[in-house]
């Protein structure tokens, strides 16, 4: 554990600390951010109404759209003289959401990223290859500062240039890898083409995040790379990577609750749900100075485990692997589908690599779903009937597991856009015709 005092703090003490920090946060936001002041007033809450962490339910939610309306600096609570860094989220629609960090914000974030690395067993002895993008995206710099805080050697690769990544991984004896799970698979794919046996490398753990992934994908990664694949969670509005991380138990991600307070709510009604029930994840950034964050709706769906303390000793509650997002759930012919379910099916079929794209369209009044799946050399046959058999098998499994019939199209390798950042898994063409639809 990187910081046992904070990570294994007894629960009653932790709740007191959270209460104190929440009080200060709300006071700070009210005093310095007109947006929050107006919102709290409209909601009939005053800073003095907040006495302990349980009072958090009195506060209104903050949503991404509001963040965007405050573009660029409307959410900032600190003057630019105190802001030392600015990140912005990859806005697929319209303006990005902009987050400013004070010196203390950067320190706290580095601390949490260091804790995340330590969750995977990393120490000052390790070489940490950071293959998240460096830039406005928080992945690269977040893990970089975390590695340095831990005292490990940060190897700032950024994403891309995969052959060089593999060369240095091999030559430097990299022990920890940080990237998106799909990029980890791409590294394995390219290493195979290069004739590099990754199994012989001294890798011990990987922190993979920034996109939803599945248990099946974890097994696949752990098959190809000699490491423990751990899930890391974070988003720029809250800080960046290191808000929560799995420990070696691989059973949920410990939230670093002294800085980030998690709640699960019913996405329809906004009502808080008890631990153990699935709903939308909401975060309050308890210590944030640059951009105070009050009850921010992440749109990620998960639950907080209610199965007692973790054997690792950390007392921060654990969130389950994200099952999807409230906004990337697809409704096709009335059936709820998450890309992660499609991925689970694909990975379960021998030889199929989880490189796919779901294309949803509407013909007349009927939704159509097509899944493009990349063919690999091990699956390819010179006989039509074998390829058609593979296609039919995928189609059958999708129908059995997801209860929907989809057209399966086998496509050439490397034709589905690869993720240096986040993989694009869904193309919803329905919205082009004014129909409700979402894209991830």
């Amino acid at each position: 554990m990187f910081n046992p005092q904070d990570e294994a703090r007894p629960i009653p003490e932790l709740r007191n600390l959270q209460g104190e920090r929440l009080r200060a946060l709300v006071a700070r936001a009210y005093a310095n951010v007109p947006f929050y002041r107006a919102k709290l007033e409209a909601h009939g809450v005053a800073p003095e109404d907040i006495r302990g962490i349980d009072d958090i339910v009195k506060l209104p939610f903050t949503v991404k759209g509001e963040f965007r309306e405050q573009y660029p600096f409307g959410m900032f609570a600190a003057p630019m003289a105190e802001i030392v860094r600015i990140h912005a989220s990859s806005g697929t629609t319209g303006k990005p959401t902009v987050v400013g960090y004070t010196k203390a914000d950067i320190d706290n974030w580095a601390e949490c990223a260091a804790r995340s690395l330590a969750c995977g067993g990393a120490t000052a002895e390790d070489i940490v290859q950071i293959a998240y993008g460096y830039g406005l995206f928080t992945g690269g710099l977040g893990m970089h500062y975390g590695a340095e805080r831990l005292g490990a050697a940060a190897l700032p690769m950024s994403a891309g240039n995969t052959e060089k990544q593999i060369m240095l991984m091999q030559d430097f004896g990299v022990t920890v890898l940080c990237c998106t799970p799909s990029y980890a698979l791409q590294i394995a794919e390219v290493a195979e083409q290069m004739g590099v046996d990754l199994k012989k490398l001294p890798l011990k753990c990987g922190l993979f995040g920034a996109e939803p992934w599945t248990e099946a994908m974890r097994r696949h990664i752990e098959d190809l790379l000699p490491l423990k694949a751990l899930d890391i969670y974070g988003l720029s509005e809250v800080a960046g990577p290191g808000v929560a991380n799995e420990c070696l138990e691989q059973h949920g991600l410990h939230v670093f609750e002294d800085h980030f307070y998690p709640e699960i709510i019913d996405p329809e009604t906004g009502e808080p749900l008890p631990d153990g029930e699935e709903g939308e994840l909401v975060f309050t950034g308890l210590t944030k100075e640059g951009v105070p964050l009050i009850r921010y709706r992440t749109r990620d769906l998960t639950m907080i485990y209610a199965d007692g303390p973790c054997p690792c000793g950390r007392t921060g509650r654990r969130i389950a692997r994200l099952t999807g997002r409230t906004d990337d759930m697809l409704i096709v012919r009335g059936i709820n589908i998450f890309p992660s379910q499609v991925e689970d099916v694909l990975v379960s079929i021998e030889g199929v690599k989880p490189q796919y794209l779901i294309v949803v369209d509407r013909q007349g009044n009927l939704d159509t779903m097509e899944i493009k799946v990349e063919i690999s050399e091990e699956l390819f046959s010179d006989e039509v009937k074998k390829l058609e058999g593979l296609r039919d098998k995928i189609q059958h499994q999708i129908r059995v597991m997801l209860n929907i019939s989809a057209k399966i199209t086998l496509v050439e390798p490397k034709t589905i856009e690869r993720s240096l950042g986040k993989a694009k898994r869904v193309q919803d063409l329905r919205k082009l015709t004014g129909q409700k639809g979402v894209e991830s």
Partner: protein
Amino acid sequence: MKVRQISIFLENRSGRLAGVLRAVANSGVNIRALSLADTSDFGILRLIVDDVDRCVNGLRDTGHTVSLTEVLAVEIPDQPGGLAGVLEKLSAANLNVEYMYAFVCRATEKAMVVFRFEAIDEAIVALQKAGISIVPAEKVYTL
């Protein structure tokens, strides 16, 4: 006597076939025979070329999905009934043909048929027994 045939996966999109053939051309390889199997969604291009390894490397380097299959080339009299006679003998020997394609060879004035059998070794024995001449691989590559 087994001929190495290259198969390439093709998406059913315009320009894909041209792309593959450009990659073959750029590797400096000459095509001896080809056939294209197509379905509504995808195609499989099968090639016999003069330099198999060079061709495969060239295709893989340009990102194509390639597999190698062993096939047999059989010489057939270029006259009515030439192919029917051979097929009857194969059928009598209980040999299953996965697919086949034919071309006429200028040099020998004979027709050449490429067969993909389920069981290639049994096919060789049966063809030899039936007195059907299998063309040596080297000769096919250099036609």
